[in-house]
């Protein structure tokens, strides 16, 4: 299939970017979106031009590195998939595809489609861990955990921190990401110990970094490649309310 691509090109964080139109020909419908981008880049290199910079790593849909905003959707039109798992059969011959970087103040563009997502690392450093300084590996079954809670924690822990929730949100809010991280710990006894402090610190960091507020639009849930539920946001709101007002010392 032959396609027209409108790709955001930006030399570095300081310069202004712009959309550049490229034509790619003879793309197989079995190719992945990133393979199509590879073909475009080979073409550009052959022509002596600068290839399009984009983030990618595992290309198996598990790492969360790829991050393209394709035709108005983070990770493209497929539900519950990352960009690397999007295939060209989702498009038609002759289509024009617009590819943009994630847009959010805390995610500045580094080059072309690559954004700096270390704001998420800062949030994790503010509380996304369990403080255990020393000791051996505890026995797996020493602490009983209800199956339902283990499942919910596992669902929340499925978040790969790709930032699609921020990209999709009209307010560039990071609530889905932060709530998934808060939830995965708050639901388990090991994480419960620091749950009250954690939620306050992570939310404070999230706000400080300049992410927007949650309007409960739920675009994040629709865009999430791991289909993290907005029930996690409600859980974080509950945790926060409890930590601040109802039972701060609990």
């Amino acid at each position, binding site marked *: 299939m032959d396609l027209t691509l409108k790709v955001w090109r930006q030399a570095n964080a300081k310069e202004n970017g712009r959309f550049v139109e490229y034509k790619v020909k003879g793309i197989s419908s079995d190719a992945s979106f990133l393979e199509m981008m590879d073909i475009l880049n080979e073409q550009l290199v052959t022509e002596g031009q600068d290839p399009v910079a984009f983030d990618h790593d595992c290309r198996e849909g598990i790492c969360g590195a790829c991050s393209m905003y394709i035709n108005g959707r983070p990770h493209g039109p497929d539900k519950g998939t990352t960009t690397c798992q999007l295939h060209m059969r989702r498009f038609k011959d002759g289509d024009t595809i617009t590819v943009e970087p994630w847009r959010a*103040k805390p995610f500045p563009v580094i080059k072309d489609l690559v954004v700096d997502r270390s704001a998420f690392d800062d949030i994790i450093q503010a509380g996304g861990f369990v403080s255990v300084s020393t000791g051996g590996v505890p026995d797996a079954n020493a602490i009983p955990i209800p199956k339902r809670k283990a499942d919910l924690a596992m669902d929340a822990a499925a978040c790969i921190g790709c930032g699609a929730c921020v990209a999709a949100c009209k307010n560039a809010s990071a609530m889905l990401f932060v709530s998934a991280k808060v939830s995965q710990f708050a639901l388990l006894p090991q994480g419960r110990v620091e749950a009250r402090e954690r939620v306050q*610190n992570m*939310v404070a960091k999230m706000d400080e970094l300049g992410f927007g*507020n949650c309007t409960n*639009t739920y675009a994040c849930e629709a865009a999430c490649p791991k289909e993290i539920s907005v029930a996690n946001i409600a859980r974080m709101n*509950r945790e*926060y309310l409890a930590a*601040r007002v109802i039972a701060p010392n609990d």
Partner: protein
Amino acid sequence: MSNLRLKYASITKKIIMGVMGLFLSSFLVVHLSINLLVLFDNDQYLFNQAAHFMATNPLIQTFQWVLFLAFVVHIILGIVLQIQNWLARPIGYKVKGYSEQSFFSKYMIHTGMVVFIFLIIHFANFFVKAKFGMVDEITYPDGKTVDNLGILIVNLFKDGYYVAFYVVSILLLGFHLEHGFQSAFQSLGLHHPVYTRWIKALGTLFSVVITLGFITIPIVIYFFR
């Protein structure tokens, strides 16, 4: 884990927004119930009696200030939140996103602004006049003398332009409520695998009832009185 100073609190703001929103929604129910009385007789007796009760009852009069405060907090916080949201994405997308699941959530600031303008005009038309004794009194055959607020409504709703403005404003209020009602529960952390569906349905029903209820009054007065 070190304690960061809590300079910001997006969730706190949202929780307050939700609580105020639900409180204001309860006020709408009371307001609509009283307004509907105007349709039940031709001399606005029922409505004027109810309005008189509301204007003289000490509990209602005290709560009026709570209500006023709720409006102010809801409006100011709404604007603050919106400005922060705009600042969070200084460069927008070329292709606008369309993956939202609650359509009216995108237009809360716009519908809210129209309702706010409506509120100011509404205040000038009724509240200020009632407070400063600019309303004529009426004595009914049973000897009761009250402010004739009812005739103010009837006269205003004879004006086609005002009716159109009123209907459009209420419609936008309905859109505001459709998202706001269920959103408040989410902000308060009340999400449930079963009940959330019912809360959303209740929110839609609530917004439809409130909208139709308020719109019925000017339509009936304009066309049938």
